[in-house]
């Protein structure tokens, strides 16, 4: 009991006094996950839109696979990216292992299915007459999709925010490809793992509080977006 309360008090002290190591780690976590989420969004939203727009053989199967990948285990992504960027792997010459770029790549792979799937779902949730209308107004595919994505923006944005939440909270992939190197690739989650195994619970709790706060903000963001989404549907 005392361990927890002592740890908690020390943790709050670390945060309030803006401990530079904590700030550095939190900043890196945000940088990696924000970058990964933005890159994933840039790739996954157009991809999801194309899957929605075109009818092709096996479309149902593709959507099923994408949805299955929502639960892609982070360590599997970590292993995959590790094997890719390891010096002996196909991308070894790029020297990506143990860098934030490798962590970003892993998180992009991790969260892209989520954004693809929710983009497809968000667009499918629109009235089908909306797609017909853009077609009937003689829009080319990309213009039609721009219009439709804009209509589904709240659903898609909440997917992006959720993806960010998954990215910043995961530990398996960044640990494997980032190596948890102090001052270089240490993030909130890998630092918590390390400090816990080193017995430094105060540091772990402090980092945990920051992670929880970020998760809370993410959750609030999703709620706000879903509120707007609901209002659009009601009108």
């Amino acid at each position, binding site marked *: 009991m005392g361990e927890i309360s002592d740890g908690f008090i020390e943790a709050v002290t670390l945060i309030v006094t803006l401990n530079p190591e904590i700030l550095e780690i939190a900043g890196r976590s945000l940088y990696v996950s924000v970058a990964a989420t933005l890159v994933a969004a840039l790739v996954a939203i157009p991809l999801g839109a194309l899957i929605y727009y075109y009818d092709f053989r096996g479309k149902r199967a593709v959507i099923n696979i994408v949805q299955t990948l929502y639960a892609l285990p982070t360590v599997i992504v970590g292993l995959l990216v590790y094997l890719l960027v390891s010096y002996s792997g196909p991308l070894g010459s790029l020297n990506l292992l143990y860098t934030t770029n490798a962590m970003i790549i892993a998180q992009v792979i991790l969260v892209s299915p989520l954004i693809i799937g929710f983009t497809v779902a968000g667009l499918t949730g629109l009235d089908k007459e909306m797609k017909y*209308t853009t077609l*009937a107004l*003689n829009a080319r595919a990309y213009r039609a999709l721009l219009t439709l994505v804009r209509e589904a923006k709240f659903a898609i944005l909440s997917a992006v925010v959720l993806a960010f939440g998954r990215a910043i909270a995961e530990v398996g992939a960044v640990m494997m490809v980032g190596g948890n190197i102090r001052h270089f690739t240490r993030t909130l989650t890998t630092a918590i793992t390390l400090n816990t195994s080193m017995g430094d619970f105060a540091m772990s709790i402090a980092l945990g509080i920051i992670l929880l706060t970020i998760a809370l903000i993410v959750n609030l963001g999703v709620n706000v977006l879903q509120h707007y989404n609901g209002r659009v549907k009601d009108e």
Partner: protein
Amino acid sequence: MSEDILTVRGLAKSYSKKEVVRPLDLSVKKGEILAIIGPSGAGKSTLMRMMDTIEPPSQGEMCIFGEPVTKHSVHRIRGRMGMLFQKTVLFDRTVAENVELGLSYRHLPKIERGERVAAILEHMGLSRFAERGARTLSGGEGQRISFARVLVTRPEILFLDEPTANLDPVSTRILEEMIIRENRENKTTIIINTHDQAQGQRLADRIAVMMDGTFVQIGSADEVFYHPISGKVAKFVGIQNIFTGHVRDGEVVSSQVSFCQVPVSLAGNVQNVQIMLRAEDIALSKTGITGDRRSVSGVVISSARSGAFLEVSVNAGCLFTVIVPFRQTGDVYAPGERVWIGWRSDVVHVIPDTS
């Protein structure tokens, strides 16, 4: 009228083995208003989307504006057509931006777009809505905005898929007037789907009846409403009195009721017939029918008010349904009461019974 602006040959659509539209042909003349009527599920909407080229057919070909519809011509052709849907589609932006959409897809200069949007809103009496959020409008207003969004692209062929099905009677009237005005002012060819036969009658030069995925009858309103080619069409266009009968001594007879002389249109030695008589075309009297009408007497089975009309069932050998304006007589018909019913023999429609 002038040349065919749209022709369709053997057009059909199947979704995973299910035939929604069975191979059908159609020609539409420039400036014409054609109504496609039929029960829901007949394939009207699918057919319309195929003709607007936004849904690929499973088979068949189309020629629009004198040009076959192909991968290469489709955008050029589609750009000269427009379509309005039953479900009002409004994008989450202002009314003006909604109306502008088709013009921006066409990459028109910003200034021209603004002018055309303002002009069409003005023309349709919708200018006051221009800067409103489109989603704040009522159903009727929204559908008019959707219509403006189509008209601003100056379509030469306009497809209207049940455009008033979700609207109240007043909004329906306003939109119908706009449709007729568009046809008169711009000679726009209009093809309208409706399950409301009266609307078909109000708007159309020609009516096509679609059932089970294909056309069963195409003709003028008179032909379709008074001379349906089958019992099924007759039922759909609201003919309540349909009897099977036969020809005897030059008379058309069913259950001892003699309806009319055998019409000349009935070819050869047809024996079995279907007899159709609109409920509105039958006169009803408590005292007897005079004049040049066929008349029989019978017993009232039931009577019920239906709006401003009275619907009376009379057993006179056959079971007749008769509709009379209620206020004209103020009469009440009690079950068991003896009455006379009568009709002019030229309103009886007789077709051979092929079943």
